[in-house]
């Protein structure tokens, strides 16, 4: 898994590439933690190059839902392939997280 972070106006974008599994999810979690510590209030996950996600990766997002809501953080995930998006849909996580098609929708989510 590779992570690339960038600022785009008021948005902090974390691009996730490759596989997020039990060996790598900790790094994604730390990237989100770092964004929150830096008081970013508009955090977007670019999943365009995300090849695979396991429950350890889903857990990174699920464990933060309450924190995002409590702190009014705008959080959205965009660019997922059909097979990766399906992993979120199996348990209905697509109903609890903002999962949209592209960057523009993510900014407006």
């Amino acid at each position, binding site marked *: 898994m590779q992570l690339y972070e960038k600022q785009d106006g008021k948005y902090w974008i974390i691009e996730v590439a490759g*596989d997020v599994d*039990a060996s790598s999810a900790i790094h994604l979690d730390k990237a989100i933690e770092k964004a929150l510590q830096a008081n970013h209030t508009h955090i977007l996950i670019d999943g365009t190059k995300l090849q695979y996600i396991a429950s350890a990766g889903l857990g990174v997002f*699920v464990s933060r*839902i*309450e924190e995002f809501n409590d702190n009014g953080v705008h959080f959205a995930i965009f660019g997922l392939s059909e097979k990766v998006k399906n992993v979120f849909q*199996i348990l209905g996580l697509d109903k609890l997280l903002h999962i949209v098609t592209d960057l523009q929708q993510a900014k407006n989510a």
Partner: protein
Amino acid sequence: MIHYYKANCHTQNLKLIREFVKVVLRDFALSDTEANQLVLAVDEVCTNIISHSAANNPHKTLEVSIIQEDDRIEFEIIDQYSEHFDPTGLLKVMPSLQHIVTERRKGGIGLMLVRNIMDEVEVDTGNAQNIWRLRKSFKQHIVHTA
């Protein structure tokens, strides 16, 4: 046909296990999404074994067999060092998703995924090993290329 793979219990090996399953599934006329679900189910069980039963000890091993039949596939995953770990309780009690969200838990959804993806999930315990059996039927589109 049976395909077999043995790996040391380290999370770095999960990608190799996934690649093994992916290659075998090429014999099935599955969509990317269907194949990915099966890869995910095996990955989650192996993650569970590596993290809990083997406690991330890379000297321990697990074995994955894929039994390919006419209209179904069975994954048999053997955890050889399970004297102190009985996963059957984990399969009996599934936490609710809302509970996991409220408690801000990072874990707890792996086996929920497995249960949702597969038609049958069994664990035989005893003789210092756990044998997981995950089964999925494909009524319509099985194709053998071997």
